[in-house]
């Protein structure tokens, strides 16, 4: 008998659309790094990181971990610090013990929360600086007909031939 067979077989990670799912009978220890949304309804201990995605802790979810995601919805239990770059939603059945850092928070009446809430400004993606009209006009005047070519700005995917 292989050593693995003595461990309760975990439910496989299911994918529903673009959301990965961890079922209620699954117990995991370690670190989860996901590049898609995650629905976690089992027991988890460690760290969760979903930088650009949404994490949902289902009603049966019991998480003891530091959690980082774009958006977090808590219906079950989290014990650990939580960071949501966009929004965190704590439903009325939820229990959250830990410190929260987020841009926006929705907390329903009846939710149990113990910890601190630090509202951070949402991250603004840096736009490449556009040349001001006066500078553009001056550049066009000084460089003659060649200046009619499109201006290539840093980060743009335009490539010169």
């Amino acid at each position, binding site marked *: 008998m292989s050593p693995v067979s003595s461990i309760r077989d975990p439910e496989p990670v299911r994918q529903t659309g673009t959301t990965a799912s961890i079922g209620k009978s699954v117990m995991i220890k370690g670190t989860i790094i996901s590049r898609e949304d995650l629905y976690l309804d089992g027991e988890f201990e460690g760290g969760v990181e979903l930088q650009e995605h949404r994490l949902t802790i289902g009603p049966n979810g019991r998480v003891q971990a530091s959690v980082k995601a774009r958006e977090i919805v808590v219906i079950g239990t989290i014990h650990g610090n939580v960071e949501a770059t966009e929004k965190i939603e*704590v439903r009325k059945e939820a229990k959250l013990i830990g410190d929260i850092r987020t841009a926006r*928070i929705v907390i329903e009446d009846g939710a149990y*929360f*113990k910890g*601190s*809430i630090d509202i951070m400004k949402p991250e603004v993606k840096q736009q490449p600086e556009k040349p001001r009209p006066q500078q553009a006009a001056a550049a066009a005047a000084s460089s003659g007909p060649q200046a009619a070519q499109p201006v290539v700005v840093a980060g743009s995917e335009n490539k010169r031939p």
Partner: protein
Amino acid sequence: MPGEARSNAPWPKGFPSDDYVRSSRGLEQFLFALEPKRNSGVLDLGGASQANISFITGLGHRISSENLLEGVDQIWHDDSTSEAGKIEGFLDQVMNYQYSSFAGVFVWDALQFLPQPLLQAAINRLHDVLEKDGVLLAYFLADEKLTTVPTYTHRVMDNKSILLSPRSLRTRNQFLNSRAIENLFQNYKTIKFFLTKDHLREVLVVR
């Protein structure tokens, strides 16, 4: 449960049983004291509420939430532990803010429901976590005769008004008159009482 503080007694007359908004001079002064401070911590001992979180974080502060009375219910009524053990347990599990300090604490109406031996220990702990010149806002029922009184959830509506939502009836552990309140906060710098037209006595204490 022995010692359970919640009560099924009828709702006492004269106390609103629906949501109502009351103006609060104490709140106004509390927020005025916070005004010069930026990015400070505020502790809300009435439990997490969206209104208070939005209001306080909207002012640029960090907010911490704790439901003091729920903590009492969980810890104080355990008959297998000694009184000293319960106090220690309460301070460790419910009022443990060893890595935080606060410029303001909303105690709301909770203090009068704390068991007598726990009351002074809780106030001393608040003294420890409040910053110098930090403020504490507490409400006490002024009606001496009632022992079973309503508790409310307090939601800050604006800088001078609060929405009170009825929560439950609880047995008040002690009636605290002005003198008793002054004695409780004798380690603090100042204490200010605000007279109100309803049953509440508003108290603003400065550390």
